[in-house]
């Protein structure tokens, strides 16, 4: 029989996981060039909610963790195509061969330098996402890279680099669902882009209208440049998630967070027993440290069990 046995009910495990979930924070940015436009995102998110289930097969299932986007800014940029007034024919070619026009009126063009339109659409709060994780609890023994060869366990504790037993949730699957994009997102995108383009048009309103009359409705210009489908929400989802790789970025971050960076819990080895004693270590005396061996973890549908032996 193991020297030490600790068991935590499913409720207790949820408390452990809640602390881990609450400490989660994700931030990322990326950009890319596409046919006719550039796009980029800047995001920051945390996790809330979710249900945790310990399963009879030894796995842990975390379902429907809400990804709360504190920041989800999508930046779109594109060049407005050159627009010219004039260029019409003053003297047409009377003959059926050759160019149609002999003498043309000069073109007066705007946007010849291909000015950029760039807008940032704040989508945080307008997009709801959920992540679900299924994984196993695994133990790892960590030797701190800062621990030098000459250090004994007490030197390592003093230097803040003790060895540790760690328990991680090692995901087998991470599912990210982009659950819903608020209907307003499409309107917001169009409104911001339209305003940005209008602001670029020169002169008084009659001149803007003269240009727009030739340009056509800005919304259609935008649609053509961005090749927008009817469902702008779906387009944004694909742009963010697939083209810019946000979804993979989150998935990989979650994987790394739980599997490698943040253990559900960890203990020092050897364990400084003074933490458990009522008498603190007197000054000058070494803390009493107990070696922990054979640290294992098990899960069933009722509880998580940790067993270990005291080393010789």
């Amino acid at each position, binding site marked *: 029989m193991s020297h030490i046995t600790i068991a935590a009910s499913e409720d207790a495990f949820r408390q452990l996981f809640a602390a881990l979930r609450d400490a989660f924070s994700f931030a990322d940015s990326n950009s890319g060039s596409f046919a006719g436009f550039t796009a980029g995102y800047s995001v920051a998110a945390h996790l809330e909610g979710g249900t945790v289930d310990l399963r009879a097969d030894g796995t842990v299932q975390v379902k429907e963790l809400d990804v709360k986007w504190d920041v989800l800014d999508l930046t779109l940029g594109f060049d407005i195509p050159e627009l010219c007034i*004039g260029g019409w024919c003053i003297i047409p070619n009377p003959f059926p061969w050759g160019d149609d026009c002999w003498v043309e009126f000069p073109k007066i063009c705007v946007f*010849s330098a291909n000015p950029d339109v760039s807008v940032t659409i704040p989508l945080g709060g307008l997009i709801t996402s959920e992540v679900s994780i299924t994984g196993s609890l695994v133990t790892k023994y960590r030797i701190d890279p800062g621990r030098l060869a000459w250090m004994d366990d007490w030197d390592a504790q003093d230097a803040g680099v003790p060895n540790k037993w760690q328990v991680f949730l090692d995901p087998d*699957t991470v599912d990210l669902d982009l*659950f819903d994009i608020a209907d307003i997102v499409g309107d917001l995108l169009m409104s911001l882009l339209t305003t940005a383009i209008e602001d670029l048009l020169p002169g008084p309103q*009659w*001149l803007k209208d003269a240009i727009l*009359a*030739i340009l056509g409705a800005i919304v259609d210009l935008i649609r053509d440049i961005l090749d927008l489908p009817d469902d702008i929400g779906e387009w944004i989802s694909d742009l963010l998630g697939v083209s810019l790789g946000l*979804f*993979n970025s989150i998935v990989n971050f979650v994987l790394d967070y739980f599997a490698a960076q943040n253990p559900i819990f960890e203990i020092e080895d050897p364990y400084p027993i003074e933490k458990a004693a009522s008498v603190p270590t007197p000054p000058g005396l070494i803390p009493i440290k107990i070696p922990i061996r054979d640290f294992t973890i098990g899960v069933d549908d009722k509880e998580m069990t940790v067993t270990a032996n005291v080393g010789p």
Partner: protein
Amino acid sequence: MMSPETIFDRYLVSQTDLDSGALTRLGVIVHQLSDVGRFEAKVVRGGRSEGSFSVMVSEESHSAQARIDLSHPEAEAKACECGADHAYEVMPKGYLVLLVSEGPGGHSVLLGPSDDPKATPFDSTQLMGGDRFAITILRPGTYGVSNVLTGAEARIKVAYPRVGRRPSAPPKPVQIACTEQGFVPSEANVRAGQGLVYVCRTSSRIVIRLLEPDDRAPNSERRLLAGWSRPSAREATRARARPRQR
């Protein structure tokens, strides 16, 4: 990002009057050159000489037109062995196209054969014999047209632009004859940006002045500049990402 001023000449906004004898960006003179030979031209602005250029009308030339930017008259003249360092070349019966590409304009041209100083030069302030004065007006409103050499008068009405869903190029230019009897037709209704070509059958200096602008009060007419309709049926967007297989 460039400011609107830098991408659109401010003179296009501020200059509403047009004068064939003082060219600006919105006006072009087309003059046909019939005689073969070399011609010298002087560019005049505000009564002062602002530059010169040479034109070589040659049967060897394949150019149907020589486009002269009066704000930079020598810019595109090519080297030639014609007695001038650089000259524009055009075929006989080719066209001399006089335009202004930048700045406030106000240019005119005096052009004559270089080997006959006594010949009557072509004076762009006095168009005649098939010369054309082509213009495009941007600012909506009512304009008065007058031939200051004959006293003839006419009207142009430029309609306020109508912004539609799709791009819309202006209709074909309107041709107006300048005759001894006056302008034919004497009234023209055009759209902003549409062309007008005054074909001079008599001696003409055509001046166009804005009589009554139609600028429309701000937001006086709510027009659709942008719009988007939600698709009739929408499902919740769903995208799944699976991590690498273990």
